[in-house]
């Protein structure tokens, strides 16, 4: 539809695009080169003798392996299952019941979750967990994360649930199916894409979270990867870059894979009503 565009404008756009791309890409280069350099420094340099020795160091460190492949999976997986199940139930219930002022209610809920967030919320939540005996347990971390992510997950899920037709459910209702059966056999299969988006979103958030585990957990054997990084230091207080870089690489891979999966299935876009 663009009828004419001057070459100057084209060059200008290209230069601008390359500058912005450079701004976003340059800080990440280290994550690609450093893990394969057996003598890792803070510089971005192509290793003269690329090797996987840094990864061997990671896999030889049982604490690091446990943090990444056990604790992180339990925390992110557990939170993912809880949030996906509860968000699906909730947005379905909200969508199929007459509740006055429902849309406003959901907006208030999601904004309230932004109000009770970050370090400010961690003060009462830590004391709550402390009194419930949930400090230094993975269960505590999962429950607190679920509470924090649920409002946004309900918000994302709402779009998917609202868009499925009701005629099947009404037909099933006429045939005398119970609400739970309608939910399991009709609604859940239809909103499967929504469940997947919510699950991926929750997993990625819980996988990368630092603040909640660092506040709630104490013992080294419970630490997830985000906190484990801070024990890879020499006694002089400088990070062991060989270990850190390879660990960061391994820790990032699942996030990238899930991003590619969502991008391939749905195209990365806004979910929920934010795009209004």
């Amino acid at each position, binding site marked *: *539809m*663009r009828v004419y565009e001057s070459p100057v404008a084209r060059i200008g756009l*290209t230069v*601008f*695009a390359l500058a*912005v*791309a450079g701004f976003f890409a*340059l*800080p990440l280069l*280290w*994550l690609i080169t450093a893990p394969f350099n057996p003598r890792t420094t*803070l*510089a*971005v340099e192509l290793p003269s003798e690329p090797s996987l020795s840094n990864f061997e160091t990671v896999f030889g460190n049982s604490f690091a392996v446990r943090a990444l492949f056990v604790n992180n999976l339990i925390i992110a997986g557990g939170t993912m299952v809880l949030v996906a*199940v*509860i968000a699906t*139930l*909730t947005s*379905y*219930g*909200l969508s*199929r*019941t*007459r*509740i006055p002022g429902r849309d406003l209610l959901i907006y208030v809920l999601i*904004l*309230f*979750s*932004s*109000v*009770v967030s*970050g*370090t*400010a*919320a961690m*003060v*009462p*939540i*830590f004391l*709550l967990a402390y009194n419930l005996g949930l400090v230094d347990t993975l269960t505590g971390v999962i429950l*607190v994360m679920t509470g924090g992510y649920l*409002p946004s997950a309900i918000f994302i899920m709402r779009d998917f649930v*609202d868009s499925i037709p*009701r005629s099947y459910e009404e037909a099933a209702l006429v045939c005398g199916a119970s*609400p739970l059966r309608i939910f399991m056999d009709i609604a859940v299969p239809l909103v499967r894409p929504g469940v997947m988006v919510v699950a991926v979103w929750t997993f*990625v958030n819980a996988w*990368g979270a*630092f603040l909640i585990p660092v*506040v709630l957990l104490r013992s080294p054997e419970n630490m997830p990867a985000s906190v484990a*990084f801070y024990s890879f230091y020499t006694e002089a207080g400088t990070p062991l870059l060989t270990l*850190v*870089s390879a660990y*960061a690489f391994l*820790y*990032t891979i699942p*996030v990238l894979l899930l991003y590619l999966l969502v991008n391939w299935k749905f195209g990365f876009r*806004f979910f929920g009503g*934010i*795009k*209004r």
Partner: protein
Amino acid sequence: MEERSAGVFSGKVGAAFLIPALFFIVVFLIFPFVWIFYLSFTNQTLTGAAAANPQFVGLANYARLFDFERWMRAGEFGSSLWITTRFVLGSALIGQAGLGMSVALAFYRRRGFLREMVYTLAVLAWIIPEVVVAFCWWAFLDWRSGTLNHILGSLGLGQPDWLFDHPLLSIIIFNTWRGAAFSILLFSSALETIPPSYIETADVVGASAWQKFRDILLPMLRGHVLTDLILITLWTFNVFTPFLLTGGGPVFRTQLVSIYTYRTAFKFFEFGKGSAIAVVMMLINLALAMGYLTMLRRRRVTA
């Protein structure tokens, strides 16, 4: 819309679906919000006598926060608020929103490789775990071997020790980088809703690019711009990630309010004072959220 809100289920059945979510929201959102007001009037600690039997201390915690004799000194509450204000202005309102609008406008009604590349890289910066990006930026900004100073050096520009000489500027640029994807995506999808005929008409009468932006795009995007500004202000105000890059230093120079809260409550275990800070933070959050809601409702009325 009205028709769709008719229920398939009765109220009772519908309520049953909501019970698990209500449990989590009441226990982990509403209760902490109410409880923290109470805690902020006590001398709660984690160890010692005040741990088992916290005493009611009235406004003492607030008096310590708002002790105007010392409140602008390094490491005190006032100075943290001032650092946070500059951080939000610089990284959210100017950095993220400015970059977001520039990128969205530059790629308005365009497709192709350049756009894909810029958008993908911005999204990667947004979704990679915060600890990883903190290490990446720590390497990037390193005085001696960091990529940034290599580039500046080869251009013959100065090579400052970023995290030491310009710590606040460093975390402002870092947070712009980290969060710009949201504004880019929001403004891009907002621009797509503007009918192309508006711009074409303006082209016919020979409007300049700036006139088109000011007289057509900006008025039509007003709601989206406000939405974006309020949300990124809210998030940036609470963000904790800069702690991973600077730890709040050197000498408290990047001690955002979120980091101040963290240190007070979880390094020194002064939960009474920590609660008072958290109350102030949440009230500021609440004001921002109310502004957002009011705006949404006003838009719905005019729409």
